[in-house]
């Protein structure tokens, strides 16, 4: 059979690729080439403007000998641990409670989730006001009669980071709840019914049967929340502006101020590469397993 290939057919054959090509090109440049570019700046002696010489790992050495960066890494560790634990725990609790055939479930879900629609700048502004020791929560409790009550974490270098945790947990719990709830709805009810007939109590059924079945949801929640934690930037600027002093400095804010405020572009680029490597170490295996599973599933 001879197959004539008129021009239109050949165009049809190449059209899908041609249509996808610009996006691919843009992503290759704006994501992958730019990452290499940042990597290159991190190996140069750039200060105020990029300079394309080569000084080896000097900027990384400088970065790791900067006390401010140590504060940032330590804060990220404290923040992520608490943020992940509280958000996951509270989100799971909310999802389980909401799954008990609650009459006003829709309204409650909407209330738990609305903070996710807000900008972190708005959240930071609101919580800065609430945590303000002179006029906020502390004052309310003092006026209720408990005059010795002190809640001035936001002004305390050691405790300010916990204020960031409170605001971040408030903003993101709804997100964890939504994923857990979707997971719970996917579980076959007959398993729970069977366990009930055997006489198991509800808390025990959840602990030993339901929660272990939520493993994929746990994975998603933890990975996505870690990503949120590492890149959190605007919340800190709006809530504490990395203060008091530099007590709530985080890698993201460090990168920004080193690059745009302190004319240490090379150090800034090095810190950006450290952030990227941390995110990649978490996200790449996750994406790989997600893609592999979905391919197996089809």
């Amino acid at each position, binding site marked *: 059979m001879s197959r004539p290939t008129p021009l239109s057919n050949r165009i049809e054959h190449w059209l899908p690729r041609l249509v996808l090509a610009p996006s691919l090109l843009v992503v290759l440049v704006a994501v992958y080439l730019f990452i290499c570019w940042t990597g290159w700046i991190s190996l140069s002696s750039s200060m105020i403007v990029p300079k394309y010489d080569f000084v080896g790992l000097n900027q990384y050495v400088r970065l790791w000998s900067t006390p401010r960066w140590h504060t940032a890494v330590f804060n990220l560790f404290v923040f992520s641990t608490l943020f992940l634990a509280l958000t996951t725990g509270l989100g799971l609790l909310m999802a389980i409670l909401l799954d008990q055939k609650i009459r006003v479930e829709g309204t409650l879900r909407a209330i738990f989730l*609305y903070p996710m629609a807000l900008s972190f700048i708005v959240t930071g502004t609101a919580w800065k006001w609430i945590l303000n020791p002179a006029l906020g929560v502390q*004052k309310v409790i003092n006026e209720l009669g408990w005059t010795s009550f002190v809640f001035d974490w936001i002004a305390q270098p050691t405790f300010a980071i916990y204020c960031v945790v409170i605001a971040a947990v408030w903003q993101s719990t709804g997100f964890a709840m939504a994923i857990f709830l979707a997971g719970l709805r996917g579980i076959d009810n007959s398993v729970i019914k069977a366990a009930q007939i055997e006489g198991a109590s509800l808390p025990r059924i959840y602990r030993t049967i339901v929660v272990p079945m939520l493993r994929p949801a746990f994975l998603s929640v933890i990975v996505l929340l870690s990503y949120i934690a590492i890149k959190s930037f*605007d919340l800190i600027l709006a809530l504490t502006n990395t203060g008091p002093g530099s007590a709530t400095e985080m890698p993201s804010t460090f990168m920004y101020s080193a690059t745009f405020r302190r004319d240490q572009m090379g150090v800034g680029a090095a810190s950006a590469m450290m952030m990227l490597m941390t995110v990649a170490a978490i996200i790449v295996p996750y994406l790989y397993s997600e893609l592999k599973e979905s391919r197996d599933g089809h």
Partner: protein
Amino acid sequence: MATNAASLATSSTPLATNARSFRRQHRIGRAVIYGSLFFMAAFYLMPLWVMITTSVKHLDEIYAGSFIGLPQQISFDAWRTAWSEACNGTACKGLKPYFINSLLLTIPAVIMSTGIGAINGYVITKWRFPGSNVIFGLLLFGCFLPFQAVILPMAQTLGILGLAGSLPGLVLVHTVYGIAFTTLFFRNYFVSIPDELVRAAKIDGAGFIRIFVSIMLPAALPIIVVSCIWQFTQIWNDYLFGASFTAGENAPITVALNNIVNVSMGRKEYNVDMAAAMIAALPTLFVYVVAGRYFVRGLTAGAVKG
């Protein structure tokens, strides 16, 4: 579930007392569940309540120490100040010009990134070719890129393109980094549309564009809404790009809000701060209230695979 357990207990134990204790336990359990849910709901609503009430109070009342209570007198002066007079360090024009900036940059960026995502998702699912999965994988990492890793080169590139500090530059940036997520949305959605539909259309002589316009797009309405809402929320709420790539007049609303709140001259006007925060929050809150269902779908799309 719990109701079943109670009725089951009644039928299998003839002792009425046993059943009654079961029912009492059940009722206590329900009370605890509702109690904790309402307590948490109160905690989640508290900041919104504080923001709204503070924004309509007089400054004297605020300094006199009414934090959580209802305003004695409702006044929208703070809203007016926040909208048209508040100072952000360089100018005292309120949030209005920056609100308009945010609209001007969000709308084109949402439309473009959603459109591009729709076409990408269509190609990746219905016109697979060797390597298209790899391309999808490459795009996907873009969803989780810490933007700090690309800010410096992007600033350089915008400078070369003559777009530094401008709104079109910011539109470009948001469109480019939005493609990853929008492609993911449409890819996961189009995967569930049967390939047979496309094959039948091909046999009938419909081409690449015809199939997209008359089969895929009409079916994709829900995911178009999801993508638009997600992109709108992301771009409206963005701070990092706005702060890095614009200056002064061209700043988006989040940057202006942060500047207004951080201006410290004289007596701090907390009611104006809260009104400004509410103004910045209203568009995304409105979208959330109107289309919350779609918002949640966008939110969980990063977690639920197609």
